[in-house]
């Protein structure tokens, strides 16, 4: 599978104007790749994920296109997207714990969902049971109501349902955010096993927690205030980041074994800009220690090393000099 996103621009319609939540996103995800999508709250990562699969009001597609396996996805058309959903592209939503109909038994809901997608529910039962074993849920779950399950169990049910038809691309939206550390590890490993067993071909894992991505992602895409900042293989992002924001982000992470007295944690001073009327050019400009007058223009997101993309005028300069 291959995903190509070109100049994807999505704004939110509000009564106070347009919130420019996603600006000119261009990137690709290769077959079998697990790409992490990271950034602060409100940087546009959820917008990006949702626009790929469920672009509904108040989101509005301004421009750009998405190609899945070379075929253009009609993301702006809710009706025409239906054949692609679930089978080609699927999502484990941020609200996974509330995503199940409270008055339906799990098994019945799955059967009705499959039937409505013209998939034979009865024939699916053995596969369903196999997958239940894989996510370590007992078969009796099928006979229970969502209210009888714990939060973690519900999340695993949703993970199972979302991958049931072996989609090419799976979006996992902040699925570890509400969990404790050991559960986070288990869920992260489950995601990787999905890819390894070819239940899904590629993954986009959205989170603000870079340490998780360090464990499972092949590459990481960093976003800031609706713009793409940097995309590179995981090692590069963590050990040799090139975008000022990424550098500050990585350096502000606590390191195991280092005491506060030895090395102080620094945050990044300032706050992200309001996207209702964002600043011109690079949106990190006002907090960036390296900003200069060229930054008033939007830097393009281009490749500076094999598989390494950055949007920073300073880096292009450095690169040109090198």
């Amino acid at each position, binding site marked *: 599978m291959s995903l190509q996103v070109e100049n994807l621009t999505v704004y939110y319609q509000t009564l106070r104007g347009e919130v420019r939540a996603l600006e000119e996103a261009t990137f690709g995800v290769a077959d079998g790749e697990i790409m992490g999508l990271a950034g602060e709250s409100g940087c546009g990562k959820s917008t990006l994920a949702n626009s790929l699969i469920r672009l509904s009001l108040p989101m509005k597609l301004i421009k750009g296109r998405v190609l899945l396996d070379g075929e253009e996805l009609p993301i702006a058309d809710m009706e025409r997207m239906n054949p692609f959903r679930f089978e080609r592209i699927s999502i484990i939503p941020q609200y996974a714990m509330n995503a199940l109909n*409270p008055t339906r038994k799990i098994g019945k809901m799955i059967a009705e969902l499959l039937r409505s997608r013209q998939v034979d529910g009865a024939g699916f039962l053995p596969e369903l049971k196999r997958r239940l074993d894989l996510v370590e849920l007992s078969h009796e779950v099928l006979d229970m109501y969502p209210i009888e399950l714990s939060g973690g169990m519900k999340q695993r049910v949703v993970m199972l349902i979302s991958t049931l038809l072996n989609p090419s691309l799976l979006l996992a939206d902040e699925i570890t955010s509400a969990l404790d550390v050991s559960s986070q590890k288990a869920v992260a490993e489950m995601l990787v096993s999905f890819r390894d067993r070819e239940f899904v071909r590629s993954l986009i894992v959205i989170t603000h927690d870079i340490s998780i991505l360090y464990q499972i992602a092949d590459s990481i895409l960093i976003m800031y205030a609706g713009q793409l900042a940097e995309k590179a293989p995981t090692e590069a992002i963590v050990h040799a980041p090139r975008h000022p924001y990424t550098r500050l982000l990585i350096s502000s992470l606590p390191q195991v074994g280092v005491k506060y007295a030895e090395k102080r944690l620094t945050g990044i001073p300032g706050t992200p800009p309001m996207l209702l009327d964002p600043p011109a050019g690079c949106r990190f400009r006002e907090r960036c220690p390296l900003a200069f007058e060229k930054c008033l223009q939007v830097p393009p997101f281009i490749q500076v090393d094999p598989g390494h993309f950055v949007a920073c005028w300073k880096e292009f300069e450095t690169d040109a000099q090198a």
Partner: protein
Amino acid sequence: MRRYLGRKLLIYLLTFFLAVTIDWMIPRFMPGDPIMNVMSRIGAVVNPSAAQAMYEYYRHVFGLDLPIWQQYFNFWNSLLHGDLGISIYVFPTPVKTVLMRAVPYDIFLLIPSILLSWWAGNHFGAFAARSKWLDNTVSPIGYILTATPYMWLGILLAWLFGIVLGLFPIAGAYSFELRPALSLTFISSVLKHWFLPFASLFLVGFGGWAIGMRNMIIYELEADYSHYLEALGAPRKLIRQYAFQNSILPQITGLALQLGVIVAGALVTEVVFSYPGIGYLLLAAIQNQDYFLIQGCFLFIIIGVLIANFGIDIIYLIVDPRTRRGMAGETA
């Protein structure tokens, strides 16, 4: 589940006890003397000593010469024996007989209007929630109907269809010259007299349910599970079906809560159309200071409402799968 039913039963028993006490208490404190009323009606008794003796006799017959606490105790006693006393207003007919004559009319009026308005209103409300355009044209009708006072709609219908258009009669349960019989003329007369009061109750209820359902469905369609199904490409039909089924549950509870309001509406409608149901009887009883008939009417209304409530609770139990499993569906 047992806890749920047990709790409900407790409330109903307490309510019954409280209501019966109120029922017994209040007519006692009404102004006016019902015995004098009866006596003046059966003919003026000129001889003062004879009048006095008669007064004492009636007081004894109605048990009004006993101390208060004993009257209360006797009341419960006869209640549990199914004896509701003798009506003063329609002396000497027993209260129970008078009431039983009125009950069929109420059942005939209330059951169809409640059930039909609930069913039709809910489906209509769900239908309105389908599209913005539908919603904007249909909702105002619902709001207007549910804001209409019951008696005004009755008056309006009576005037428009009864007087101006002359299509329906506006008083009584059947034509005054007919006698109850299993004939076509009688039945058609009953139906013609029944239609306008029924329509009045139906329309107001319909508006209320439609609006309520529309609001619930819109809420459900914005719930996380609906969004998840959309993301998984489920057809709109399935999502709407789930929203509907989840919205019906609070509407069932809502029906139980509305019973008091519906009873009030029926009472007022019966007054407008002189329809001989229990509500109409209650009003006549008050105007004639008939203690026992008042108590009997009130008792029947209370029992009816409690039974209906319990019935609805059982239906809810059947319909909401979660309550059967002993989980919080609707709290008691």
